[in-house]
């Protein structure tokens, strides 16, 4: 993955030339087209199941891609990233239920809460290396999960936040309307992905890659490694929290499972499935996993076996994520073509 990334780094750093303009606006153009396609989907199909599927993809996609900022770009294997997914869902749900403020205010307030919590937890965690970082993040995740379970008077305990989340109309957007919710989820997904793409391609994003490949050298070059890691930890938490909010809006509630460690495990799994060396790998992984989950549960009650075998195929057979595999295959073909 590292070699592939290094190769990409050379071609993607914008040089002076005609391509710069194209490269600067390419991502925005792709995002606009993707949004137009997704948003016009309800015009062609009345299938509620398909729209629901896209909404779930938005929630998990935001979460998984933000995890890739940590795992793939910075080399921080977080095992507790799901805590911010849960935190987003719960904060948003609680603010809407208790305070009854407009949705955008609750949205911003939730992001602010997430940023503070992530900064505190991150400040403790990012000092630690590799496996210890993974364990401490896992411990914090479980701490938040136990807090949700035990603080039943506030969070509803193991029953979750019930009674529905109120969704008042704002600026003509009515999120209790299924189509409105669908378009809003797509918009959040695309905006989130675009923002994360900007982070990944910015000089800061390349600093992160350098920290991943050689933290000591980055430090010698005058980069404050701790601060860079903490910054990306908080940024990634914000996008995970966004995913949690989409999920909370979708199911109109929040459940302790959102903060359980399996969400983090699924996030890692999605990343491996899709591939961590391409920006859209986690998105591909999300669609794959959700498709897999949906189809397999329809055919057999033993979906663990089927899912396990598929994972084994990826881990032992391909030895990399799907999009990584495709990207390398194309790279090989191009090399072969140039050699001729």
């Amino acid at each position: 993955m590292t070699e592939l990334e290094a190769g990409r780094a050379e071609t993607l750093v914008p040089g002076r030339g005609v391509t710069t303009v194209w490269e600067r606006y390419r991502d925005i153009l792709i995002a606009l087209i993707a949004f137009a396609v997704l948003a016009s989907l309800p015009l062609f199909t009345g299938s509620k199941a398909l729209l629901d599927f896209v909404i779930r993809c938005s929630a998990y996609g935001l979460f998984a891609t933000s995890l890739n900022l940590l795992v793939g770009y910075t080399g921080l294997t977080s095992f507790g990233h799901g805590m911010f997914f849960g935190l987003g869902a719960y904060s948003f749900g609680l603010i809407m239920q208790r305070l009854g403020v407009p949705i955008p205010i609750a949205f911003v307030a939730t992001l602010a809460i997430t940023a503070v919590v992530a900064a505190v937890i991150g400040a403790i965690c990012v000092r630690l290396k590799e496996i210890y970082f993974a364990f401490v993040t896992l411990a914090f995740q479980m701490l938040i999960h136990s807090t949700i379970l035990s603080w039943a008077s506030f969070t509803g305990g193991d029953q979750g936040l019930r009674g529905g989340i109120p969704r008042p109309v704002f600026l003509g957007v009515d999120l209790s309307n299924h189509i409105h919710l669908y378009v809003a989820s797509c918009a959040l997904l695309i905006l989130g992905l675009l923002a994360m793409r900007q982070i990944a391609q910015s000089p800061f994003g390349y600093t992160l890659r350098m920290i991943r490949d050689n933290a000591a050298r980055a430090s010698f070059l005058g980069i404050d490694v701790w601060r860079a890691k903490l910054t990306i930890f908080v940024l990634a938490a914000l996008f995970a929290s966004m995913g949690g909010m989409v999920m909370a809006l979708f199911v109109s509630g929040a459940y302790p499972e959102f903060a359980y460690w399996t969400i983090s495990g699924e996030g890692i799994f999605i990343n491996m499935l899709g591939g961590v060396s391409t920006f859209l790998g986690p998105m591909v992984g999300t669609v794959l996993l959700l498709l897999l989950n949906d189809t397999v549960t329809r055919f057999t009650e033993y979906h663990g076996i089927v899912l396990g075998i598929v994972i084994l195929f990826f881990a032992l057979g391909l030895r990399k994520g799907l999009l990584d595999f495709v990207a390398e295959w194309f790279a090989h073909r191009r090399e072969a073509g140039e050699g001729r």
Partner: protein
Amino acid sequence: MDLDALAGCLSSSACLVTQTTSGLIIGMLLFLVAVGLTLIFGVLKVVNFSHGAFYMFGAYFAMTAYQLTGSFALAMLCGAAGTAILGLIFERVFMSRVYGADVLMQLLVCYAFVLIFDDVVRIIWGPEFRSMGMPAAFQVMPLFIAGGVVPPYYLLLIGVALAAAVVLGIGLSRSRIGKVIRAAAHNPGMVSALGINTGLIYGGVFALGGMLAGLAGALAAPVRSLTPGMGFSVLIESFIVTVIGGMGSILGALIGALLLGLIRSFGSLGFPLFTEGLMYLFMVIVLVSKPTGLFGKEAA
């Protein structure tokens, strides 16, 4: 929070004895699982995420053997031997393929097997709760120590786990095989160059780890209910134990497991709903103050 109950218990010897033994039971079972985990990590440098499944299989193997033969000793033997064989096969066929690969790949293979093993148990033994029942030999009057109730089976359980700890500790530090294993953990290339089959060592260590977890499951079968997925909470807790004690340290696993057992049994009195939270809080505190764990070596 119920601090009165905790204070009340601490001032009564009967309650103190009861809670301490229940803490020791939890701790000893955790130790058996965690020591296998720490051993596998120390030698193979692999975090065996599927370790809880061996605990589960140990319990189910023991239950089936007990139902077929009616012999408790045979049930324990079956639980331990069955998981040892399973561990050997699992390591040789699957895990050995991902050594040197990304840590995430290793975790992924283990995660796949957690899913598969849980469903296998569901297919063979059914999804409902099962129980093995207390063997007749132990259905006797409990002992009373300082007013506290201690079932005799608990004493056997603590004894077996302690014996395993002693045998393991002495075996690793004194015996020839123990020395080879430690050498393989330190420098597998050199050990292999000296004509020792490291693949066999790796398989053996994995089998040993699986066996210890299986033994823990078999020992727990009479006192806990059996269900697919039962290995999971044990896995998470034994992770906490190894992390607190220090990855790769047997003494650390013992101390960590006992501490965690006591936290659980006394914590359930003082903070009935936040018992799990206490464990994680403890883990966070240890890791933040000493990232390598209480007995971990620096830069391991």
